C-alpha cells in the first residue's frame, strides 16, 4: 500500500546506549512506518548516523522530521533531497546451485551486476552485492529462478552529494 514516495532521512545522534530505542520507539508511538534503518558511528566518535527510509506523504514526512528533531539525543536531522544524494545498500544472498551449468549462469550474472562471490560450497554460492535497492531487487529477481536459500539486506545508508553535508556545525 503506497501512500507516497520513499524518503531518506539522515539523522545525527548521540553515540550512546538507548538512543536507537528512543528513535525506534518514537516511530512506533507516532505510527510512522520505517522501511529500513541503519546505524553506525561517524567521523566523530561521540556521534552516530542513522539513515532511515520511510514511505509517506509530505505531511507525514514533515511530522517525522519535526518529531525526530525534538528528541534530545538527536543532534541534526534532515530529509535528503531527492536526486542530490548517493545511497548504497549491501545484501548477502545465498543461492542454490543445482548443477554446474547453472553455476556458470549464476557466475555470469554476478559478473554483469559486478557483485562478488564470497563463499562457495558444493550446492550453493554466497554473493555480496552493493548498490541501490533497485539494483539489488533486480539481481534478486534473477536469482529467484535458481532458489534463494538465505538473504540478508542491510537497508540503505546515504550521504548528500558534493560539498553539501549534514554536520552538527552546519
Amino acid at each position, binding site marked *: 500500500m503506497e501512500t507516497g514516495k520513499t524518503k531518506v532521512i539522515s539523522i545525527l545522534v548521540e553515540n550512546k546506549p538507548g538512543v536507537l*530505542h528512543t528513535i525506534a520507539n518514537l516511530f512506533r508511538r507516532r505510527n510512522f512506518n520505517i522501511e529500513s534503518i541503519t546505524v553506525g558511528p561517524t567521523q566523530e566518535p561521540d556521534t552516530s548516523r542513522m539513515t532511515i527510509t520511510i514511505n509517506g506523504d509530505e505531511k507525514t514526512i514533515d511530522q517525522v522530521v519535526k518529531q525526530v528533531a525534538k528528541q534530545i539525543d*538527536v543532534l541534526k536531522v534532515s530529509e535528503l533531497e531527492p536526486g542530490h544524494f548517493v545511497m548504497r545498500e549491501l545484501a548477502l544472498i545465498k543461492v542454490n546451485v543445482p548443477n554446474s551449468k547453472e553455476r556458470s549462469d549464476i557466475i555470469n550474472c554476478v559478473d554483469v551486476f559486478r557483485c562478488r562471490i564470497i563463499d562457495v560450497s558444493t550446492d550453493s554460492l554466497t554473493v555480496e552485492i552493493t548498490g541501490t535497492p533497485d539494483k539489488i531487487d533486480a539481481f534478486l529477481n534473477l536469482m529467484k529462478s535458481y532458489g534463494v536459500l538465505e538473504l540478508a539486506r542491510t537497508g540503505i545508508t546515504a550521504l548528500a552529494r558534493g560539498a553539501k553535508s549534514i554536520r552538527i556545525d552546519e
Partner: protein
Amino acid sequence: MKMAKMTGARALLESLEHQKVEVIFGILGGAILPVYDELCGNKKIRHILARHEQCAAHEAEGYARASGRAGVCMATSGPGATNLVTGIANAYMDSSPIVALTGQIPASGVNTSYMIGRDAFQEADIIGITTAITKYSYQPRTVAEIPLTVNNAFYIATTGRPGPVLIDLPKNVQSGTADVEFTNKIDVRGYKLPTEPDLARISEASSILSKAQCPLILAGGGVITSGASDELVKMSDLLMAPVATTFMGKGSFPENHPLSLGSIGMHGNPAANKLLGEADVLLAVGTRFSDRATANLDSFAPNAKKIHIDIDNAEINKNIEIDVPIVADAKVSLKLLYAATSQKLQKGEGTAWTKRVKEAKEQLSPLLKELPKNLVPKALLLELRKLLPESSIVTTEVGQNQMWSALYFQALKPRTFISSGGLGTMGFGFPAAIGAKVACPDRAVVDVAGDGSFIMSEQELACSVTENIPVTVIVLNNSILGMVAQWQRMLYKRRYMAVHLGKTPDFVKLAEAYGAQGLRATSIEEFHKAVKTALTSKVTTVIDVPIGSETDVVPFVPPGCGLPQQIGDY
C-alpha cells in the same frame, strides 16, 4: 566550584538544594534507601509521604502547575517506579515540569545476581517503560556525574515546552563515594533551545490581523506556561478580538472579561464554538489543537486564516493546517506581535464583530442562562466562584465534574485552574490539590470531584491530614461513573454497563476515619455554609454533595461531529 568527597545520595540532595527544591513527594523502598538516609535530618528539603506513588507524581504536578516551578517526586525501584507511570504520562500530556527520581537496583557490585539486567527483586526497566512519556531520562552510572545530571534534568524539564524528566538511580551509585564537583554547568548537546520569533512572520501575522473583520484568539496552556496572560489581554483589547481558551488554557484570560468566550471543545461554551466558525482570522497561541478542543477538523474554524504561535515546532501543521506559523515563546511573540499590529491599527471601539460577540454570548452562554434554585452542579459551581477569592486554586477530577467545572466555574487568573487535560486521569484532582496547597499555602485550594474519581485517590486523605496540608474536596456524589454513563445513555441506547457504583462509602464518615472533616450539603444554603466552614478549617474537609445520577453535561459535541453541532438543552 567546590569539590568534596561524598556519597551519591549526598550529591543528589546537594544538587537538588542547588536547584532550590523545597519539597519531594515520595514513597520509599529498598532501592532508594541511601537517599532517604541522607534525607534524615535534612533541614532544607521537606519530604511529604504520599500514600501511593501515582499520587506522589500528581502532587508534584499540582505543585508545578500552581507555582510554575519543577515539582519533584520520588519512588523506589520496581513497583514504586511503575506506579509513577500514570503520573508521569499525565505530566507529559499536559506539558508540566516534573522531575521523577526512582531507585534502581545496582548497576554493578559484588552480588552479580542482584544487578541490572538479571531480573532481580523489584527490578523494572523504568527508562524503557517511560521513554514515550518523558521528555528525557537519565541513569547516572557514577557518583561524579550526579550534579550535572540533576542540572540537566531540571533545565530540560522547565525550559522550552516543559515536561517530565526521569532520573533512575542505581543503588550502588547512591551509596558509592567519590570526589564530587558541584557546578552550574548545563550540558545537553542535542537540546534545541526555543527560537526567537521570525520577524517576517510577525509582520505577516500583524498585517493579517490588522485587516481582520472577525478576529478570534484561541489561548492554550502555553499562554499559562509562558506567563503571557497580560500580553494576551492587551492583544485582545487592541484587536477587539474575543478570546476562547482550550481546556488547558482555562485561566489564561480572565473569564469575566467582556471579550471572554470561555472554553471551546466537546463540552465547550456554545458561544465559543459558534463564533469560532464565524471568525475570519484565528490567532492560536500555545495550543496543540487536541481532538477534544477541535472536534471534527473539517468544521474547525473553516473560514479563518490561521496564525499559530507555539514553542514546539512539531505542533505546527500536526493537526491543523496553518497559514502563518510562529515558533517561539508565547510571551515574546505576543509582545512583538502587539508592537507590530499597534502600528497598523488604532485600538478599536465597538465593531459589528464585537456586537455579534455580545449577542452570541447573550444567546448562547450557559452562564447567562437562568440560575437553578436547587443544588445542581451549575448552581454549586456558580456559588463556589462567589465564595472563593480570585487567587484560590481549583483542581478537578475527570469526567462530568471536570466538564461542569470548565463550563460553569470562571477561572480569573492563570495557574488557578488545574486539571488533567490530555490524559484524563481520574484521581488526579485530589493529589494535585495537595501539591498546589504545598506550593501556595496561603491560598484556598479546592478539588471539585466526583465520587468515582475521588475513590481512586482517597487514601491521600492520610497524607493531607498527617502532613497538615488542608484542602477542600467537594464530592459531586451521584453514585455512578457519570460521564461514561452519559455516553451509554446518549450513544449506546441507555444500555448501562459497569457504571453503577452501588454502595459508595459515606464520604462524611470516610473523611472522619482519616481524621479529616466531613460535611454534607443538600441545599445551596448548606453548601454555602459548608464551604465557608471548610475554608476556615485547619484540616482537610470533604463536602459530600448528593446529586442526581442522570444529569448530563450539556451541551455536547458527539464524537465525529464538528464544534457547531452541539446537542442537548442547557
